[in-house]
């Protein structure tokens, strides 16, 4: 992309109409869109071993907000390629996005999505509705279908604070871009089955923000126990899950100093009962 010596701004810049950055990119520099990379070949193939994978993301609502958390492991086949990977991000002032799957695709999609929201905000002078943001993300996942068919899949989890209803909402996606609203809690990635099982037993609808955070840490711990691609808290290196909270005050990513005592509590309780807290039988 040669922007120096641009001279007069090209027509694509000066045309009124689109407030979407990815639409603009599609017109002006389509090769920069992640989904256009392998546009030549749409044949089914498996390139999933090509690049590292990120794994489990969990999200839990509480009255007035939502917590999203992710483990820190990235894997390449049977190897651990990164132990401090980041898979949960701020999307904008009032939402968070976590993404599991091929890391390269995931990170690029997140970057594009963050920019998409900021771009809309600047062009229009107003923010998108939460539903609108969720739909934009669906659109971007759909544009990646060609790569997904070749094994380079990235599946996001989106959560945010809905100012209208004053509550946290969670949206999940499949690789074709189908979007569905999830209630109470949800999880994506290779360890998600175990995480969701744990959350099913732990979730209460009168959670405080901290309760929801602890539930996420418990769920990720359970996922890490049974899924080799999900990393548990690394007590010696002090690498903890990424914890983010979105409520009426906006997005907040917990610092390690805040997460550390919560993780210590969960881990030390597990030394007494390795399977974690017990749910009542009936």
């Amino acid at each position, binding site marked *: 992309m040669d*922007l120096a010596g641009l*001279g*007069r*701004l090209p027509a*694509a810049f000066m045309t009124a109409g689109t407030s979407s*950055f990815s639409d*603009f990119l599609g017109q002006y520099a389509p090769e*920069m869109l992640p989904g256009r990379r392998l546009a030549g070949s749409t044949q089914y193939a498996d390139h999933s071993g090509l690049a590292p994978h990120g794994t489990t993301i969990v999200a839990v609502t509480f009255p007035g907000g939502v917590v999203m958390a992710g483990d820190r492991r990235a894997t390449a086949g049977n190897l651990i390629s990164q132990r401090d990977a980041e898979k949960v991000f701020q999307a904008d002032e009032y939402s968070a996005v976590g993404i599991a799957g091929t890391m390269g695709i995931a990170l690029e999609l997140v970057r594009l999505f963050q*920019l998409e929201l900021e771009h809309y905000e600047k062009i229009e*002078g107003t923010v998108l509705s939460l539903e609108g943001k969720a739909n934009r993300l669906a659109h971007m996942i759909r544009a990646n279908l060609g790569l997904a068919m070749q094994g380079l899949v990235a599946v996001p989890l989106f959560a945010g604070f809905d100012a209208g209803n004053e509550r946290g909402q969670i949206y999940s996606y499949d690789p074709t871009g189908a979007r569905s609203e999830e209630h109470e809690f949800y999880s994506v990635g290779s360890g998600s089955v175990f995480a969701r099982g744990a959350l099913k037993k732990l979730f209460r609808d009168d959670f405080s923000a901290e309760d929801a955070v602890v539930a996420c840490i418990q769920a990720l711990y359970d996922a890490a126990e049974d899924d080799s691609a999900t990393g548990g808290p690394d007590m010696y290196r002090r690498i903890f899950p990424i914890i983010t909270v979105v409520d009426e005050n906006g997005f907040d990513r917990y610092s390690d100093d805040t997460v550390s005592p919560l993780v210590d509590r969960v881990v030390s309780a597990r030394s007494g009962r390795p399977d974690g807290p017990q749910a009542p039988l009936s």
Partner: protein
Amino acid sequence: MSMQFGYVSPEQIMKDRADYARKGISRSRSVVVLQYEGGILFVAENPSPSLHKISEIYDRIAFAAVGKYNEFEVLRQAGVRLADLRGYSFDRVDVSGRALANVYAQTLGTIFTQDPKAYEVELVVAELGADESSDEIYRIVYDGSVFSQDGFSVMGGPSDQVSTHVRENFQRSASLEDSLRLAVDALGRDEGGEVRQIATTQLEVAILDRSRPRRTFRRIRGAQLESLLSRPAEDTAEDDTADRDTTETPPDETED
């Protein structure tokens, strides 16, 4: 006027276009951009709460304009696209106000000489630096000329009166309240020398705030604006009839 039929000298064409553009711009109410102790302040007289004259372009870059709304709006959107595209293909720190000012200058210059109608706009691109000595304020006018401004910039409307007032009272390290009051006082100065009171609802105010991380642009409106304007003045007392006819107009105001 013994002009050959069908022939207009290039000088005349350019002069006509310049006069045309200037006339359009002078109909627009003024905008004042100035440094204050915490960053850069933008104040415009703007009766519309939604058709902005001041906008965010990028993390540390803001845009202000006077003239025809549809024309500067096209430029504003183009600026946001260019900045976002640069940030996406390189990194956020690689988006600079100077590059944007250059692209605006080239675009306006080309439009001025080649298009049937010149844009009736004047722009300010301001970039917040790490400290006040590295702040940058560029003013770009309808024919593509760029001026690097020191400390403040005034455009549109009766800008002579307004800029005289700002120049005489400007202090780089003034508080936000004092700078805001100075800008509002200046905007109220009309050509005849009368001083108007501008209602808070007629003001569009924004800052690039050095204390904020990442996106530093913030609008100031409603109750917050009221309270900033109603705080007691410290030592901004100056004679209200200070409209001596200063003959020294800055060189950039009088190109012709």
